[in-house]
């Protein structure tokens, strides 16, 4: 009897898919020749990360990632690119093959040593336990109680950004 995939198998497949989406997006984002394509890669990467959050049973975080990073940050970046209209990219000349091999080796060594440091030497904190069900009530309360300082600081940063944008926009205006 052919056994059909169970929901758990499907979930595993979906997890692999999400990881693939994240990695592909990241690779596009760093390798694209055109700026706008790099942003598209970033969007794909963010969608993948949101999928990972969802997979980790945190739908609120996943949707916030979609709303803020995909819906706001990336749209702002694309808009900035459209306004700035960067000149066509200068193609970087063909790199030396030996340089490529050397950089690959250096990268591999770095990655390996970091991985060893991370898995064997580092003092890992105890695995985090699920404190609560991650509902909006809990998140709201911890934002305004335990982490209210960080929350307020972030809002001050945003306020400064708005004021800065206003000052810059005002300075460019000519009185007619």
């Amino acid at each position, binding site marked *: 009897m052919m056994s*059909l995939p169970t929901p758990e198998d499907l979930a595993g497949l979906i997890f692999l898919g999400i990881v693939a989406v994240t990695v592909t997006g990241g690779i596009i984002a760093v390798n694209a020749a055109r700026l706008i394509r790099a942003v598209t890669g970033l969007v794909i990467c963010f969608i993948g990360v949101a999928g990972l959050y969802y997979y980790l049973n945190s739908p609120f975080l996943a949707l916030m990632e979609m*709303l803020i990073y*995909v819906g706001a940050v990336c749209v702002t970046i694309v808009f900035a690119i459209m306004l700035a209209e960067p000149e066509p990219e200068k193609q970087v000349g063909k790199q030396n093959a030996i340089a490529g091999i050397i950089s690959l080796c250096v990268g591999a060594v770095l990655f390996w040593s970091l991985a060893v440091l991370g898995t064997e030497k580092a003092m890992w904190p105890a695995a985090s336990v699920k404190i609560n069900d991650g509902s909006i009530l809990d998140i709201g309360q911890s934002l305004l109680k335990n982490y209210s300082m960080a929350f307020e600081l972030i809002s001050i940063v945003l306020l400064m950004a708005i004021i800065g944008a206003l000052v810059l926009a005002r300075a460019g205006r000519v009185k007619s």
Partner: protein
Amino acid sequence: MIPHPETRRVLTPFILPTVVLLPLLAGGLYFVWPLVPGGVQRVLISLVAVIAFAAGNAAYLVWLERKVCAHIQRRIGPKEVGPFGLIQPVVDGIKLMSKQLLIPKGVDKPLFMVAPLLVLVPAIMSFVTIPFSEDLVARNINVGLLMIFAFASVNVLGLLLGGWGSNNKYAVIAAARAVSQNVAYEIPMLITVITMVMVTHTLNLNEIVIQQDGSFWNWYLFRFSASPLMPVAFLIFFICSLAETNRAPFDLGEAESELVAGFHTEYSGMGFGVFFMGEYANIVIGSSLAVILFLGGWQSPVSFLADGFWWFLLKMYFLIFCVMWIRWTYPRTTLWGLLNLSWKVLIPLSLINLLLTSFMVKVWPLLMGAS
């Protein structure tokens, strides 16, 4: 009745798939289906139902739009293909699919191809959490309201990439307009929604509808005890959903008289079709959300009539009719008029509503308790 030779020519390639492949598929499904585990069955059924609902609605809303427009302009509208022109959307779909997918020289091909999908797919995803009745919901997510806004915010990215990728001046101008419009109207919309969440205490769409149980005076539209400005909040929400879906009088992104066809100028065939499916799916979602938040969802307006999904559909299609009605009645606004309306009228109003609601929700009970 002998079909027109042109009709026969168009339909011939579809005969083989329908006569041979469909029965094969159905037969295969009949044997395989019982072996599929229950959880996967539910996912598959929800998936197919959601996509079918979105696509069917897109097709028949085009028909409805043409009929409404025609009657407002004292015409009849489509009437040749089928009774009342009801088969018109099918024929239109076949026409769009059989057209050549033209990709002009000089476009950014990957962006050009992916843009229509970025408009349509998030819209279809949003249908997953919309409760048509208490049980008729594909996935009852606890943060459903947030989910719809999260996916709705991707829509504008599709327009932007499509406009920019087209490498066409009109498309780029349209995309820039669409972004400034979407950014401006997302603010009052989200403030209104935050106000609603302060009243409902939940982001679960099912629970929001259940809270409006009873007769129509229990709908949030008339919940004056929560905020005396509830009808105003509904109006702000409705106007913003018009603007967010780029509908007239806010359809500056596709102003035909100035920008050819706006961001989809360069799209042909199904590329254009997918953009339109996305637009209509977004209208359906906007109207559904208004019905869920303010008009009691599937709850019947009077207590002696049974609740059910028919009330939801009735209210939703009434709102969609209003959207079309507005489109064919009012002329397009200017870009400045549009931005002024948002920044100078809707945002202050929604902020006042937010303050008033927080006062009514938090301070008012304290005052009443003290006296």
